[in-house]
């Protein structure tokens, strides 16, 4: 490291780094002698800190409305056959209910369609997180041959031919429709798609009757069994990437060898440790988004939970506990504004 002057900020940064380093190197030399069996390892983090979702604020209503119409506009696909809404049915969980998506010309993709609900809260977009923003995601989706398969020039031409559309773009952006404004409008719409008032949210807000006894127990199990380690934060997932099959072989259990799409984040970073890693999906509205997993291999919620227990938890879980977990997951279904549907 070259010699350099240190200003306060650098010192501060360094201090943090040093601290982190120290901790790793075992500075906390606690004496464990005499620790009895009753002295347990720290338990799993609780869900107490989870905050309910709230309605998004500060959005441009006109822009959201425009985004919604574009989301439902088949002119965004190459052959005009499908729209975003063809795969993301916001009236039914924000996904398509298929194991894997079917794009233009009936092309079957390798991946399950995730919900668009709350996707704006995710750390990145797509299973492998290759899009760091909604705009980027839309850009890829529009041009992906397996999805809309269109190109921006065509879309711009089509939209500009539509007087009403031009007017609306004029009103919202002060310009003609183009790639950037289309993306911006749809992204705004996606940001509006936050589900609120799920029984769990109401429960968190203090309404103890919002969730049934099974769900409440399921909630405790979710935390105690360790699901919370990965499905965490406000969105119960979506804020980092995790390997599928930490404690077991997902693909063996699935009964099909991993394909390229199964490589997950590895496809983005090329790093060995990212092999089979996927964005931990948000479990909100999960009851509505069957089938499950990136490949759509989990048919029911129970299947998905069992799979999770097997390959992620690596511990025995009883059937009644599975049932309760499912009950909890079912209590995660929220609502969006009627106007957005």
């Amino acid at each position, binding site marked *: 490291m070259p010699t*350099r002057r240190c200003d306060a*900020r650098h010192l501060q940064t360094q201090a943090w*780094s040093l601290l982190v380093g120290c901790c790793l190197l075992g500075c906390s030399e606690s004496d464990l002698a005499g620790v009895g069996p009753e002295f*347990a390892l720290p*338990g799993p983090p609780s869900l107490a800190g989870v905050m309910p979702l709230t309605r998004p604020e500060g959005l441009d209503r006109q822009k959201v409305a425009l985004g919604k119409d574009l989301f439902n506009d088949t002119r965004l696909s190459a052959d005009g056959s499908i729209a975003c809404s063809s795969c993301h049915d916001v009236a039914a969980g924000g996904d398509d209910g298929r194991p894997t998506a079917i794009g233009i010309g009936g092309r079957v993709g390798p991946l399950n369609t995730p919900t668009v609900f709350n996707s704006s809260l995710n750390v990145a977009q797509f299973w492998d997180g290759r899009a760091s923003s909604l705009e980027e995601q839309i850009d890829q989706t529009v041009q992906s041959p397996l999805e809309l398969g269109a190109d921006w020039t065509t879309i711009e031409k089509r939209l500009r031919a539509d007087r009403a559309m031009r007017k609306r773009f004029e009103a919202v952006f002060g310009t003609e429709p183009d790639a950037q404004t289309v993306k911006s409008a749809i992204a705004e719409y996606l940001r509006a798609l936050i589900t609120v008032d799920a029984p769990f949210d109401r429960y968190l807000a203090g309404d103890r009757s919002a969730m049934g006894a099974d769900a409440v127990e399921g909630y405790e199990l979710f935390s105690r069994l*360790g699901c919370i380690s990965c499905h965490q934060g406000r969105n119960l997932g979506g804020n980092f990437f995790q390997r599928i099959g930490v404690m077991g072989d997902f693909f063996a259990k699935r009964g099909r060898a991993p394909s390229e799409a199964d490589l997950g984040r590895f496809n983005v970073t090329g790093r060995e440790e990212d092999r089979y890693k996927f964005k931990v999906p948000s479990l909100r509205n999960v009851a509505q988004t069957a089938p499950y997993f990136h490949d759509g291999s989990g048919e029911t919620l129970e299947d998905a939970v069992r799979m999770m227990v097997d390959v992620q938890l690596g511990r025995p879980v009883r059937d009644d506990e599975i049932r309760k977990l499912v009950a909890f997951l079912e209590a995660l279904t929220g609502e969006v504004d009627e106007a957005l549907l």
Partner: protein
Amino acid sequence: MTSAAKRMGSVKGPLAIAIGMLLLMVFLLVMSNRTGQRTFELAKQQLDSVEAVNVRMDGALFMSLFELQIDFDLLARLQAEMRTAGEELASVLPESGQTVLPLIERKLEAVEAFKSNQAIFRNSRAIAGQLIAELWQRPEVRVGESDRILFDVERAMLDFVGRRDAESSQRLVAALERAASARVPLTELEEWHALVEHAETLIDYTNRLGAVLASEVFYQFPVVLYEEGRRLAQGLAVSVAKAGLYRSLLFVVGVLLLAFSAAMVIRVRRYLHMMERYNDVLEDRVRERTEQLASVNEALRSEIAEREHVEAQLRIAQKLEAIGQLASGIAHEINTPTQYVSDNVSFLSSVWRDLEPVLDDYERIAREEGEKGKRSRELLERANVSFVREEVPRALEQAAAGLRQIGAIVAAMRNFSHPGGIGLQEGNLNAAIESTVIVARNQWKHVAELTVDLDPNLPLVPCNLSAVNQALLNLVVNAVHAIESSKREGELGRIRISSRSFDDHVEIAVEDDGPGVPAEIQDRIFDPFFTTKEIGKGTGQGLAISHRIVHKMHGGTLTYEPVRGRPGARFVIRLPLARRESSIEPQASYLEAAAG
């Protein structure tokens, strides 16, 4: 003019210089804004915000590591913020973006790896703890050395989780191996297998976590940011210096331009001034020429008019001369018979006077003689002698008067038409007045009563009598016309002609009781072009001629003087008694005088 134009042309050079300087200024201005100062400033700001996000991110990592923050939401948000800040930096200054963006990517990857590994570590640790707790509840734990084995593993696990170092991990591995080799029922349990797996996972993920946190990027990041910051500061300093240089150059050129344009303005103003003067001179000249032309024109016009006038005058004069000659001829012809008629009349008168006593006597005798005288009385009666005696002297008297009048007329005719001619001769003006009155009689007799008031002691005056006659005649005719224009039919006006003598001059005044001359044209009445009336007739022309006669021929004056207190005009001729050589043209003939 042309030299001014040339001078103005020479302004083009300086103008080009000024424009050049202006362009240079614009160039300098543009350059001073192009040194990238703003870019560096913005980039520095963005770099600062990257740095700030980085500090917060390290803090969040720390909190996650020590489980002070239970979820990764904060980290996830900071990741997004850092990416945005980096992209903005790249958009402001791509070079900076090139250095910083890959670093950000690496840092974000490290953070992702951290989250992933930390989650597993935490999960396995929690599950391991739960599994151990569950195993302690199992009856199998009481078989043989089972409790010792479980205790060992638990201790080693606790020790490892606390230390997370190589030694403690080896101890944990050793404890697990010992347990495996013990072959007790406890280790056959599903939970034990799970525990072993999680213990292994813990070791695995602790190592991974350690690798992530030891990754260079955590140390590099601040260094690179610092160095980039310094680079930006340097760039900023350089660009500020450059901008400063450009600005001072701008200032210098600006001042020069200002001075230059001031000089230019002064010069241009001088030229303009010069041009103005040229203009003035030009205008003066044009005015002069115009005036000259106008006066030439005027002169020409007056010459033409004069000539026409002279020609008309000439015609009149010729007529007059012819009339004069005729008149003098007639006068002579009349004079001779008149002479002997008057001789005879005076003879008859004297004879009659001699006969008077004879007739008296005869009448007396006839009355006294009675019968005898009867015959005489009859004769007397028949001849109506008493009537004759009454009438004859009267008839003779009247005849004599008539003859005198004829004599006067003839004399006047002779006098009037006498070709006054060359030079001035002593002349009797009273006689001239009288003859004029007589000549003009026909003109005035139905219009006015004419009275003459002559100075009996009027000396002889050097003059051209016929010209003076003409002048006087004109004045009289003028008076008659004036009266005619104002008096009603049958009403008579009054004309009075008087003569007076003074020390050095004599004065002849012609007065009338006509309307007089309006004040506004008084100074123009002697102007030959003034009248619109027919030439030879009418006030204006006559007055002009009279004026010339008096002024030019005699060195006298003819003036108009309004009559005070009543309407009317008074024209006064003053003729000097001693001739003043300078103003009199003795050779000027009547005609020449009339022509001016």
